[in-house]
Every structure is written in structure tokens, then in C-alpha cells.
């Protein structure tokens, strides 16, 4: 077990700790704070179907849960460096991918809760919406209005390439319980799920009753692009895993998983934060006595 591979993992894992539990949560907290200060309930009542304390409490909870996970990350890193006996923990004696994978799932949890909270926020907004008017654009929403055909083609190409590569690497043998089948199944299910959610974004019910069509279009474009990037990243990650097995570079597994979590976050959350700038969102629709018209 060489020192440089371990060091590479430590640096990558440190980056995972920082990116998912400090950098992005801090960015999200800054946005929450900006919205609460710039668009207060007194002037923008439709934005707050719940009392202000509820949002402040949520903000506080998110901050301390992510800070707690940040500390946990350092504890895991310390344990991996000084306490865990890797030869007894994994057959090959290398640092197991279990550590970055487990920690990545824990890191994603508050982000997922935040996403789910958004749905309940929209539900409350719809319930509180007393306007008798409803607006809709007289234009059909089509997939290629929001994402480039090249990106969709590239995603499909990488998916097919991954399947062919994995089959090639395993002499086109597809046994039950084999890694190839599991990987193909996971990626296929993920892509189907992504397609379903994408279709729901395109044709489904408007979640935020006050959102303007322009803002909704921007959000749809951002989400669809994020989904495609995530699918491509997953195909590439699985191909890297196959290559890893093929050329016997198992010592890179843990680093690869840690790097994968960061890429996925960067392409999904990072892309959303870059694309949906608060300054570009029309908050006037949340003032009392206004309806979304553009």
C-alpha cells in the first residue's frame, strides 16, 4: 500500500468534506439570509406561508446539522488515517470506498431534506393562494427548448458506451449477481428516474403558484441540464470503475468514489446555484395583490 495513493485519498476526501459540508451549505445559507433580508414577509407575504420563525429555525437547523457533518468528516478522516486497520477491513488492504460513500450519503441528507422542504413550502403556497386567476404561457414546452440536442445525444452515447465497455471488459458475459448487471441496472433505473422527473418538470403541475413563466423556464432548463450532467457523470464513473478493475487499480476505488460525490454535487447543486441567480428571479410576484403574468 503506497503512501502516495493514501495521500491522494486524504486530499480528495478533505476536498469532499469541505465542498459538500462547508462550501455549498455556506452558499445556500447565504442565499437564505439574502432572501430573508431583501424580501421580508412584511413586503413579500406570499413568499412566507409559514411564520418567519419557522424559516429562521430551518436555517438554524440546516446550519448546525451541516456543521456537525463537517466535524464528522474530520473524525472519519482521522479514523481512516490513524485508527482503521485497512487490511482487516477490506480484503485487498486498501482504503475501502465504504468511507467516502457512507460519508457522502450522510452529507447529501440535509440537502435532500432541504429539497423536500421546498415541496412542502410550495404546497403551503398553493393552499394559501386565494387568487382567482391562473396564468399559463400559450407555448408548448419541448425538451429541446431547454437542453441542447447535443447534450442529450452525448448522455445517450455515454450510457451505451458504458454498457458496451463493461460488457467488453467482462467478455460479454452477463451473469446474475455479476457487477456488470448491477451497474447496468443501477444506471438504467437512474436514467429512467431522471427521464420521469424531467418529464414531470416539463409537463407537470406548476409547483410554485406565483412563479413567472420566465422563472419557471429558467428553473426547468437548469434542472434538466443538471440531470443530464449527472447521468453523464454516472456513466463516466462506472466506466472508470470498470477500467479500475480491468487494470487492477483497486487502490484508487476510495478516491474515485470521493471524487464522484464531488463531481455530482458540483454538476447538480453547483450548476443550480450558478444558473439560478437570485438577482434574476422576479420576487415582485410575492408582494400582496400581484399575480404572475410574465
Amino acid at each position, binding site marked *: 500500500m503506497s503512501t502516495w495513493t493514501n495521500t491522494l485519498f486524504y486530499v480528495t476526501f478533505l476536498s469532499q468534506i469541505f465542498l459538500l459540508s462547508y462550501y455549498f451549505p455556506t452558499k445556500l445559507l447565504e442565499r437564505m439570509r439574502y432572501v430573508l433580508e431583501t424580501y421580508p414577509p412584511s413586503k413579500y407575504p406570499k413568499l412566507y406561508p409559514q411564520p418567519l420563525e419557522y424559516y429562521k429555525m430551518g436555517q438554524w437547523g440546516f446550519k448546525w446539522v451541516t456543521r456537525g457533518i463537517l466535524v464528522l468528516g474530520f473524525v472519519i478522516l482521522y479514523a481512516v488515517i490513524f485508527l482503521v486497520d485497512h487490511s482487516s477491513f477490506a480484503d485487498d488492504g486498501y482504503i475501502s470506498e465504504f468511507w467516502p460513500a457512507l460519508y457522502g450519503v450522510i452529507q447529501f441528507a440535509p440537502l435532500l431534506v432541504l429539497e423536500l422542504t421546498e415541496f412542502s413550502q410550495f404546497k403551503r403556497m398553493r393552499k394559501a393562494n386565494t387568487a382567482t386567476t391562473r396564468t*399559463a*404561457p*400559450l*407555448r*408548448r414546452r419541448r425538451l429541446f427548448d431547454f437542453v441542447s440536442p447535443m447534450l442529450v445525444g452525448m448522455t445517450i452515447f455515454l450510457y451505451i458506451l458504458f454498457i458496451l465497455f463493461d460488457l467488453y471488459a467482462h467478455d460479454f458475459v452477463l451473469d446474475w449477481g455479476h457487477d456488470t448487471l448491477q451497474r447496468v441496472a443501477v444506471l438504467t433505473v437512474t436514467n429512467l428516474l431522471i427521464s420521469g422527473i424531467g418529464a414531470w418538470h416539463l*409537463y407537470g*403541475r406548476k409547483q410554485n403558484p406565483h412563479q413567472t*413563466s420566465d422563472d419557471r*423556464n429558467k428553473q426547468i432548463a437548469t434542472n434538466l441540464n443538471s440531470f443530464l450532467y449527472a447521468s453523464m457523470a454516472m456513466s463516466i464513473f462506472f466506466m472508470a470503475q470498470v477500467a479500475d478493475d480491468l487494470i487492477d487499480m483497486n487502490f484508487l476505488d476510495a478516491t474515485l468514489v470521493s471524487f464522484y460525490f464531488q463531481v455530482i454535487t458540483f454538476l447538480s447543486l453547483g450548476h443550480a446555484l450558478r444558473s439560478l441567480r437570485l438577482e434574476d428571479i422576479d420576487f415582485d410576484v410575492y408582494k400582496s395583490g400581484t399575480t404572475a403574468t410574465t
Partner: protein
Amino acid sequence: MKSMEIITDIDDPQPLFAQLIAQIKQAVLTGQVSPGDALPSIRQLANDLELNSKTVAKAYRLLERDSVVQTRGYRGTFVHPDALANSTVDLTAWVVGKLSETIAALRKSGVTDSEIRIAFGNVMNDRSKLGA
């Protein structure tokens, strides 16, 4: 990606499907949509406006009857090539005119208003005779 907005109001005395028809015709007349333009699918418009899809389907069906829109199978609904000319035809005004002429002729023959109302109701309710 800016486009014309349809606005429905549940407090408006005009039925929702009639609001949709009026606004789509208005969009054609003001050039906000042109012949050949794709219109939203029934499901999309119903979801966006929080309407029953049958309401949107009824509006589209009546617009198709008036040759303002045309449905091209699975490809969806498009603005009809003759939509501009057909959007100016006010079918309601035409029906009112025809009925006014008939009622005037009946009154002239000595038929009372209550007799006309009863007869009109009977004719409208007897769908088998009308073939509707």
C-alpha cells in the same frame, strides 16, 4: 422564450372553456401566435391553469371545429393556416342573429314568448330528433 400568457379567472361569469377560446382567438388576431405555431398540449395547459383537462379539451375541440386550430395526431395541436380569417367569425353572434330572426317571425305569427320558450326547451331537450 417569451410567449403570450393565457389568463383564466374562476370568478369571471364566462365559462372557463369560453375564456380559453376567446384568448386563443385574440392571440391569433393580434399576431401573438401565427399559423403553424405549436400550442401547448391539453395536459400542459390544464396543469398550468389548474383546470380539468376536459375543459381544455373542450376549448380545443371547439377551436378545431371553427378551424382556428388543427390537431395533427400525436404531434399535437397547431394554429390552423386559416386561423386569422376564422378567428374573426363570431359564431355566438351568428346564432343570436338567427334565433332573433326566428323569434321575430314567430311573434309576428302570434306565438307568445312563453310558448316560444316551452317549444325551444322541448326542441333542445329532444336530442334524438335533432340527431345531436
